[in-house]
């Protein structure tokens, strides 16, 4: 069986981890927002903006890591705009989120056209290169899959641990989780719900932008229109699939990426020549929907998700 063979190749798993990386960043970002009680539908556009900002920074001559920081900052700016409208003003998180996606996408394309008016094919940058971790990368199958990735992928995995730790083991994480469950509990303990939620949305949006930047600075070395292509929406599904927990969301992202990597490879097998390629391309989206159906009954939705909090409301 060709498909079984594929599952035992290191290159397949390496590809799966690579595909999962941007999803991990963005899913963590969305997860932080939602844990604090804010649905961030700006994710798709923020990823586009991050992809462009990081790449453009490096193209203009900054270091790669500076580029990552630039992407993060741009994401946080959009997060600031999003949270200003949705938190103190309590505007519809659906409408604002979609508006942010449109704003981020169109201003990115506008900036791209202004910055590179003449080019027909976008220029390349010297992207992040795989870094083989000594000893670990020599493990058969696992080594090339997990430990021969780019530094950004390692960062994504480290962040899962960091976010988990912060959410469950620090006073800040406690406040964020409470803000998404019962903001009145946060206010009653003398903390500012507004500050916590806005902070969470900004940090989350920053991570989404880094997820976008992964595409232009690690997975590829150039910026294309439509390159995010619904990944943001998939991450929203992954947050649900992961029951709003970083560890489970990571598993979901890898599982999802593995399917994606598999469909790319199956396209090249004999099966792929008989089935239209569009069917394979549909799989990620169909899988996301199936995941949502599967998890919808069991999911522990933060109780105050999408519920604005107005101090002194009557």
């Amino acid at each position, binding site marked *: 069986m060709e498909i079984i063979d594929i599952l035992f190749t290191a290159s397949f798993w390496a590809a799966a981890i690579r595909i999962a990386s941007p999803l991990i960043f963005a899913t963590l970002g969305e997860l932080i927002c939602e844990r604090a009680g804010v649905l961030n539908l700006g994710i798709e556009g923020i990823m586009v903006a991050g992809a462009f900002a990081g790449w453009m920074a490096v193209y203009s001559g900054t270091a790669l890591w500076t580029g990552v920081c630039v992407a993060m900052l741009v994401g946080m700016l959009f997060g600031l705009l999003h949270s200003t409208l949705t938190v103190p003003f309590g505007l519809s998180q659906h409408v604002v989120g979609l508006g942010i996606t449109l704003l981020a996408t169109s201003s990115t394309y506008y900036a791209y056209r202004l910055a590179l008016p003449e080019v027909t094919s976008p220029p390349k940058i010297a992207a992040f290169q795989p870094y083989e971790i000594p000893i670990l990368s020599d493990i058969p199958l696992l080594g090339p899959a997990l430990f021969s990735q780019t530094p950004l992928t390692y960062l994504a995995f480290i962040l899962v641990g960091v976010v988990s730790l912060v959410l469950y083991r620090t*006073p*800040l994480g*406690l406040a964020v989780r409470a803000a998404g469950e019962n903001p009145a509990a*946060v206010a*009653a303990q003398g903390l500012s719900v507004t500050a916590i939620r806005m902070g969470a949305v900004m940090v989350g949006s920053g991570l989404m932008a880094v997820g976008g930047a992964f595409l232009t600075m690690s997975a590829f070395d150039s910026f294309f229109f439509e390159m995010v292509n619904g990944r943001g929406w998939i991450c929203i599904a992954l947050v649900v699939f992961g029951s709003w927990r970083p560890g489970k969301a990571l598993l979901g992202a890898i599982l999802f990426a593995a399917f994606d990597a598999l469909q790319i490879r199956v396209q090249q097998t004999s099966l792929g020549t008989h089935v239209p390629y569009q069917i394979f391309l549909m799989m990620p989206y169909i899988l996301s929907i199936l995941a949502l159906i599967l998890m919808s009954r069991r999911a522990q939705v933060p109780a105050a998700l999408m519920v604005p909090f107005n101090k002194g409301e009557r």
Partner: protein
Amino acid sequence: MTKEAVEALSLNEITKRFGELTANDAVSLSVNVGEVVALLGENGAGKTTLMNTLFGQYTADSGTVRVFGETLPPGNSRAALDAGVGMVHQHFTLADNLTVQENITLGVHSLLKFSLGRAAAKAQILALSKKFHLAVSPDAYVGTLSVGERQRVEILKALYRDVRILILDEPTAVLTPQETDDLFATLRLAIKEGLSIIFISHKLHEVMAIADRVVVLRHGKMAGGVKTKDTDKNALAAMMMGTEATPPDVSPAKPGAPLLALRTVTTPDIGSTPGLKSVSLTLKAGQIIGLAGVSGNGQAAMADVVGGVLSPSEGQVVLGSETAQKWTPRIAVQSGIARIPEDRHKTGTIADFDLVENAILERYTSADFSKSGWLNWSKSRAFADAIIDKYDVRCPGSDTPIRLLSGGNMQKLILGRVLEANPQIILANQPVRGLDIGAVNYVHSQLLAARERGAAVLLISEDLDEVMALSDVIHVIADGRLSPEFKRGDMTPAQLGLWMAGQGFEVDIPDAS
């Protein structure tokens, strides 16, 4: 008092307005160290607003708050907490997805610190819980706790912060008489530790039992202050309501035919709130049945079943002599059940709908208001105008969004909406909650009038006095089980209190397993 009194807290001329409503009008109040001051007043008198202002959740329009001589910055809960003020809110401010310990330590440490100091915190919580008799497990998730346990967590939250002044907003509303005694024991321990307590209530006997001094609020204004040893319940009631409370004059009932019966109805528990457990109840023409009980003991399930919102998982709903096959809100309305819901803002009305749209909410499909899918607005408007007229709904006009009406006027519209259909059966769930005394009397007189013309009334209330004043027959509900019926005057409040605490239900309903 031989000891020299030390002032712990003083509120000076606090005024707080919400739009055109003045919730607090130049209210002043002071509390000494080791003193229990009760803040007494009707629903809507401005007690909670005053305390939220003190606690920095609202900013006063004018006036100052001083704690141990220091003026608190307005609108800053943090500063109030730091100054030693703790508040137990009526609606608990707990996050269900966190443990008891996490709820208690939330916001205690700087958000920039990396550690929660879990071991030390746990030891301290256990020590406090032992010292003040507040039994609760630090590792339990709050979502799994009973109402009584949640309140203990709320009190522990304040004690953990070592507050000097503790505000309790209607703490007994959710407690059985027994649990109330436990709470009072805890409060006396706290007083011994030198805390000061502000106890908000509208229950006179509790105020007399726990407080050293009483401050009465009426319509947002100070109506007086008095030491408990110098007063009695009647005098307090007069101060609270402005007049002596007059119980409605109720003639003996002449019960007629059974109109609606529940036969061994069981409904599922929802979270920690019990459903009904094999409940049988018959509503008869010309009779008011009162359902007494502590909040959260199955009243919601009872109201939902009678109102058609919930179908029994076991047992039957019998209308007249026929068992209902399908049971929905619309069928209930069409069967002549008038439903006055517990929460007029959330379930009774649609805030952004105008009075016309709200008036036809339950019956827009009937031939009176629509024909083959098209609404007749002129008939609907006439209906709403008739209600406004007849039930004295004060409003700028029937095209006003109902959210702009006061609670009393909103309730009058709901009353008109359901009573105009000449219902045979009336479900009144907390019909006077949050209303001023005038509106309360109006609602009660309407219920009595309905009884006179032969309607069956089910009155659900957490206010035992209301139940006892109006009901011909009383049942007590506790943990989803229904007591036998008690005729008017058969039981004293204390006896009913025992039933409310779950005593008297001799046999436990065996579990289905």
